[in-house]
């Protein structure tokens, strides 16, 4: 048997190491929470400089606020977002009221525009039906079938 002191020290040391593992894991969880997105794990303060000055004004993510996919977030980059029932859409809806290729949300300059791709049931920006490319302001709901999405900063 080990001397009592060594036993006590190793016992406490092991528990401390176990908790260190937990804390490291929780730190990774935390950095993901700051990114507020399932896609990008930004370390707080480590973002690009213009990312910080643009916060609050330019849309940075797309959030599904109602419908079967509610809660999903997509971090926006320069690529367009395709919405529809097709498997290769960015947001794949399985909603009887959505078309295979329903709508596209794309960036032009600093603004994001929504465009209906000839869907059967139409795309609505707030209450108005979208006919041509229409600018999507921050926080205004876009309704596609039973799904509602918003752009957030």
């Amino acid at each position, binding site marked *: 048997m080990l001397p009592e002191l060594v036993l006590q020290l190793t*016992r406490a040391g092991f*528990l401390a190491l176990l908790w260190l*593992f937990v804390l490291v894991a929780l730190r*990774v969880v935390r950095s993901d929470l700051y990114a507020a997105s*399932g896609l990008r794990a930004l370390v707080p303060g480590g973002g690009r400089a213009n990312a910080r000055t643009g916060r609050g004004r*330019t849309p940075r993510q797309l959030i599904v606020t109602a419908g079967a996919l509610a809660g999903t977030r997509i971090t926006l980059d320069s690529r367009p977002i395709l919405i529809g029932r097709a498997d*290769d859409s960015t947001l794949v809806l*399985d909603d009887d009221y959505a078309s295979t290729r329903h709508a596209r949300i794309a960036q032009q300059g600093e603004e994001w525009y929504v465009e209906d791709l000839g869907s059967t049931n139409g795309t609505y920006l707030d209450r108005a039906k979208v006919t041509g490319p229409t600018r999507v302001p921050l926080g205004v709901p876009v309704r596609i079938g039973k799904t509602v999405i918003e752009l957030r900063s």
Partner: protein
Amino acid sequence: MAAVDDRPSAAPAAPAPLPTGRGIELVLLAFAAVLVTGALALVEANQEQQLTQALLWVGLAYLALFTVAHFAVRTFAPYADPLILPSVALLNGLGLVMIHRLDLAELAQAAAVGDPPPTELISRQVAWTAIGLALFVAVLWLVRDHRKLSRYAFTAGLVGIVLLALPGLLPSSISEVNGAKLWIRIGPVGIQPGEFAKILLIIFFAAFLVQKRELFTTAGRRFLGMEFPRPRDLGPLLLAWGLSIGVLVIERDLGSSLLFFGIVLVMLYVATERVSWLVIGLSIFVGGALIAYQLFGHVRVRVQVWLDPFADFNGTGFQIGQALFGLGTGGVGGTGLGAGRPDLVPFAYSDFMLSSLGEELGLIGLSAILIVYLVMITRGLRSALAVRDSFGKLLAAGLAFAIALQIFTVIGGATKLIPLTGLTLPFLSYGGSSLVANYALVALLLRISNAARAPLNRRPAAPLPPIAEAGTELVERPK
């Protein structure tokens, strides 16, 4: 509010490569290897074994095994969640150390009495771990897109039900171990098909709910501020209830029955967001439990032991009574690894792994282990939130919840919060089927988290199909 932006910077910078988290995963795996090796060294020291260099080799072998898994993730699911695999590695490693520690106690006991040394469980469990990791890699390799799984949903459902029912129909000589008919034993190898059935049924149920969501959200009667479904839409839930009662009666297994019904209920709730399903499900569950209590002796014994294990301490209450004493002996700081007497609890290596760990690591160590489980479950649920298709959401939520419910019932049972059910702690307890099946489960979770975290599809959109080939779509008349 208009996003007027007159800053000169126009074109956004080319997107930097997204962080994959693989680096932190490898670091945490190495950390887990250090912890497991340390635990093994403490056990050997406290059990008066010789501390040799062999320990180092065991630690390195363990690390190598999980590094293989890590590289499989790196190759097949590069954006998968970085925390799930290290959590699993740590839990599995601690489980192996504890099983080895209980083996040593059994050997010492046998030597003292003069019996022939009992078979060591550790070598079997190590073999099962290797098989589990092989299945883990195979699932990651075979299932490249979780959405493809929904195509095989009905096959999975059928195979799942057959696997669940099979031990109940086979003769007891093949399927019965310790009073529960859960096994298929061929020669020395026994498997519990129910563990695999669990995953297959979750796949089936996720696909089924995506297809038939309308059926479950059709408005019925409003009562007490909740929308209740129409009675005729209750069919699938009643079927699941009947199946879980069947498992309880024929296979005499409280745990699988509870687990199966709980998973169905929660997936239904996740799919429909209706509290009324939970209310209905819980009330028929309580009804079923009351009837089972009246009719079946084995259920009554479990409940009586739960209410007062010390009424018949030397008989039916011995196991849980000893487990409670073990946890009490451990106290806040534990006795130290290898320095307690967890072997006094019958089945300390499987059903009562929790009390063994609690005795030697104390409340401090046990709560760390519970947080590791919690991290694993929340990462699974987070993948469910972030993934962009309904089937993936339901599948991930179902899989993560299955682990959560299983942990709750085991720990609740061992600490006398709820009646004992006889499930195993995922990754920690001794048991081949449970370990292998849970590795497959984790591989699926990683696959879904990869889909949730990977960068958006770069493929240009395919041209629209000609109108003749386009699917028929429902059109709602404007109101």
